[in-house]
């Protein structure tokens, strides 16, 4: 059962863990960014690369279409081969 995605909240958790994928954590370090300031768009406020870029106001057009690309890859699986 899909769990209803929690509203994007500050992903600060009791144990101090920030829910972010490894590449987003790496990017945040490169940008010298505190991940607790970033709104995560995933379940439980999980932060992805696109969220970090959005927080920085970086245009996601060419360089990092992290969210649109999966939709593109979804297409082939649907088409009967």
């Amino acid at each position, binding site marked *: 059962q899909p769990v209803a995605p929690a509203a994007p909240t500050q992903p600060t958790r009791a144990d101090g863990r920030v829910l972010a994928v490894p590449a987003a954590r790496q990017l945040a370090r490169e940008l010298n960014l505190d991940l607790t300031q970033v709104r995560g768009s995933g379940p439980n406020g999980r932060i992805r690369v696109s969220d970090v870029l959005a927080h920085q106001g970086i245009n996601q057009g060419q360089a990092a279409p992290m969210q649109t690309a999966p939709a593109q890859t*979804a297409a082939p*699986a649907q088409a009967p081969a």
Partner: protein
Amino acid sequence: MTKSYDYDVLVIGAGPGGYHAAIRAAQLGLKVACAEREKVGGVCLNVGCIPTKALLHAGEQIAAARHAADFGLTFGEQRMDIAKLNGWKDGIVKKLTGGVGALFKANKVTHLTGQASFVDDHTVKVGEQTVTAASIIIATGSEPAKLPGLDVDQESIVDSTGALVMPDPVPARMLCIGGGVIGFEFAHVYNNMGSKVKVIEFMPNVVPGADADAVKEFTKAMKKQGIEIAVQTKANKAEKKADGVHVELEDVKTGAKTVEVFDRVLVAVGRRPRTDGLNAQAAGVTVTDRGFIPADKQQRTNVPHIYSIGDVASNPMLAHKAMKEGLVAAEVIAGKPAEQDAVAIPGVVYTSPELAWVGLTEQEAKDKGYSVKTGVFPLSASGRAMTLQQTDGFVKMVVEKDTDLLLGVHIVGPHASDLLGEAGLALEMAATASDIALTIHAHPTLGESVLEAAEAVHKQAIHIMNR
């Protein structure tokens, strides 16, 4: 659901698609019946996925015993009791199909025995009784395609079902017509059992759908084990004579014909959807020319309360696709927002090494317009593979250049199918190669080769030079 039907859901066919649908629908509180004319478990449990894997395992143990000499373990005379082998395999099948029967009971799914045939869009005749249902799921699966000129007698000329019964003695010369997944799995089994095996394939490449590099690596491994492979070759006809089956083979490019003699011939040239006796037209359900009953992302056919799942719905004809679609159909009927939205459906040839993949091949990715980078890590550089005595193969990763987004993973090697778990989840989670490269993988494992392939994408693999 409306009270006037016997059942909330009637599932037709108790293969992996059907039994998943039936059990999930029951879990969600619906009143469910499942009609099956043969045995619960369908092709998959009875004459497909499971018995082939049992025979493959047995064959691999024979090979393993031979390779044990490398580390000093040798055996005296080896004996294979073929009757026991077939019995062991059948025992596993019986245990699993019995398990499905028990799960039906425990979940209160009514099991109806007999041929199902539509009377109208809510009414189905099953054997002698007639039942009605608010929603109906068609899960009638598929059957082996036939090849003109080669009549299957399940003795010397067999389809996959006949090939599952290992003859005693094992055939000395075996021909597999069709170099797809099924053809190669049987080729591998018979080769390990001692047959001299030849695989022929009409197309220029074997295992259609898999990545070209992976197929090359796989083919190399199969040939190394003594399996002969001829592509762009077809079988025109067969004649049974005293010394064996005489098969006329034709080189598709030159048209040159030769006759070769085999003790057993397997016809494995694909499968076709199965709708015989279903009388789908009585329900107004569309059946395509090729026999498929197409469905949308919620598995609905053109008749909204009738669903189609698994092999009968579409390619690829794979059990895990059928299972997923079964769950989706059941959940949609129960009012849940389910959808068959898989990014990728994995494929596996369970030989040794295995060939396993999920997502786009390099060529598919390019064809779709992706700018692609790849990373390859050979198992010859894996410590774990060495300790397992299985260093043939590699992990290849296909990644979008600018975004680092993972597009596909292609593996030739031991336990490749187990490594697909990570690859499949990565694709579904829209992971990047960096996500995989930054994740600690236990040492020493085959999974480290997945990590290293991701590092290789960035020219940063540790155990190979990155060029």
